[in-house]
């Protein structure tokens, strides 16, 4: 089971967990990303590429399902304006055992960061700036290229 959502509305963890658990397996691993209030960030706005975003997330989820034989992969990402402390992303991997679920969960968030067309803009006071991509994100995503393919 794959569930992808790119949404304006708040992420309902309980509903997503219910979905993950309903896939019927022994282990669910999840990751939740929250908006950080670094250096006085007041608002974070997420822009994306409609159509391409969903396709990219589907590809990431399919990759995880195939590699770890998951029962379910869930990716939910918010777009639009949000504030520090709010959930920006949620991923879940449902597998027979914890090892596969935990690894697949890390894969989902690492790949999402480099493969899906989202852009963050931070506003501090009246000053807005686009967030720069980090080399570390590419290193995190690339580690999945070298081990079992």
């Amino acid at each position: 089971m794959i569930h992808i959502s790119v949404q304006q509305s708040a992420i309902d963890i309980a509903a997503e967990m219910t979905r993950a658990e309903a896939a019927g397996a022994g282990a669910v691993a999840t990751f939740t990303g929250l908006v950080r209030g670094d250096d006085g960030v007041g608002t974070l706005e997420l822009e994306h590429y409609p159509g391409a975003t969903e396709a990219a997330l589907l590809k990431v989820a399919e990759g995880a399902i195939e590699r770890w034989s998951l029962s379910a992969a869930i990716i939910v990402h918010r777009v639009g304006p949000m504030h520090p402390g709010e959930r920006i992303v949620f991923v879940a991997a449902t597998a027979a055992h914890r090892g596969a679920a935990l690894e697949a969960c890390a894969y989902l968030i690492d790949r999402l960061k480099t493969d899906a067309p989202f852009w963050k803009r931070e506003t501090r006071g009246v000053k807005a700036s686009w967030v720069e991509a980090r080399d570390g994100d590419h290193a995190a995503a690339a580690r999945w290229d070298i081990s079992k393919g």
Partner: protein
Amino acid sequence: MTIRMVYFAWVRERIGTGEESVEPPASVVTVADLVNWLAETSPAHAGAFENRSRLRAAIDQDFVPLDTPIGRAQEIAIFPPVTGG
């Protein structure tokens, strides 16, 4: 050949529009050629495309390197490195 160009984030802001239709000459073969050609069409395009190493592209919604031939592309997107998650 008419191509729908789409722009995101600061590329969109600097160009001043999120999308436009363009008809590049036959000499435009790759996405990089297209960027070079567009950069000559206005100061805004030139500014947005100033640093080519900070640009990423997609052809018909698939991510591609800038040296990819545009072929029969209908939609080409130009944008900064992604920052989701």
